[in-house]
């Protein structure tokens, strides 16, 4: 089997299992109110972390590059209550624009 196929199969099976942890392992279960409250906060925590890594992370370094223009445009458009699709398109355009200038 080629290296590519080993990666495809192991990552595929591993990711499917990771996604199943919650819905398979914990479905139906009544959780204590405190646990429910904490789980409700997972979304802002993970999404904020993803904003940081998708904007600044390059391998193990934090860098400022054209992606910051995309994220900055997105912040402004969120504040202006722009529709969501417009935010994503402008994020790509701002990034591509800054990159083309360099």
């Amino acid at each position, binding site marked *: 089997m080629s290296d590519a196929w080993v990666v495809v199969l192991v*990552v595929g*099976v591993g990711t499917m299992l990771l996604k199943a942890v*919650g819905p398979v392992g914990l479905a139906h279960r009544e959780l204590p109110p405190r646990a429910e409250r904490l789980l409700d906060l997972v979304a802002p925590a993970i999404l904020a972390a993803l904003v940081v890594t998708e904007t600044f992370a390059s391998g193990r370094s934090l860098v400022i590059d054209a992606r910051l223009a995309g994220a900055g445009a997105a912040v402004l458009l969120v504040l202006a209550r722009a529709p969501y699709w417009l935010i994503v398109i402008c994020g790509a355009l701002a990034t591509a624009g800054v990159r083309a200038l360099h």
Partner: protein
Amino acid sequence: MRRVKHTSINRAARVGIPVFPGAFAIGISFGVLARTEHFSSVAALVMSATTFAGSSQIAAVTLLGGGGTVAAAIVAALLLNSRYAPIGISVARAFQGRLPKRFVEAQLVVDESWALGNGDRSLILGIGAILWVLWVGGTAIGLALGSVIGDPSRYGIDGAFAALFVALLATQVGTRTRRTVAFLGAAIAAVLTPFTPAGVPIVVATAAVLVGWRRP
């Protein structure tokens, strides 16, 4: 029953509109990338259909193509996807039925369907199913068009990712507690990035939820 299903897919299509073009575009860029890194078309399509998680697929293919070892590619991709354990746990309440059904449905819980679905099972599954079709379809188009399209980063696809997560985050910070959690999560990710493999900072950032231990 059919009617119900029909309405819920319509609703998912409406709520998910903002994230569909991005997923499709990133799917295309994954296809282009896989081709340039000498993945066979079948391998790339199987990866999109099973892994169904953009950043990890791009990381694995890039690492392997750049001369990295098989083990490095696998570990990097699985670390990037390890956030799906806490993500899945946070929506587990919404899933019912027999184990195989829950296993299949869990595959549709991805970043965008999870964030926009907000715990609503039919919305999560509807958006997730549409995203899956766009993702695998985009991969196929990228594989077919590979050489015509060229380097995807020219189109700012990586900046679209950043903008997407800004927009998704904005829907999640309605209260002071949630804003505090977001700030803390961002800070944890920034501090850990230089010291840990990619993916670890995102999972550790989940610890920010402990802010809610006392306050409602």
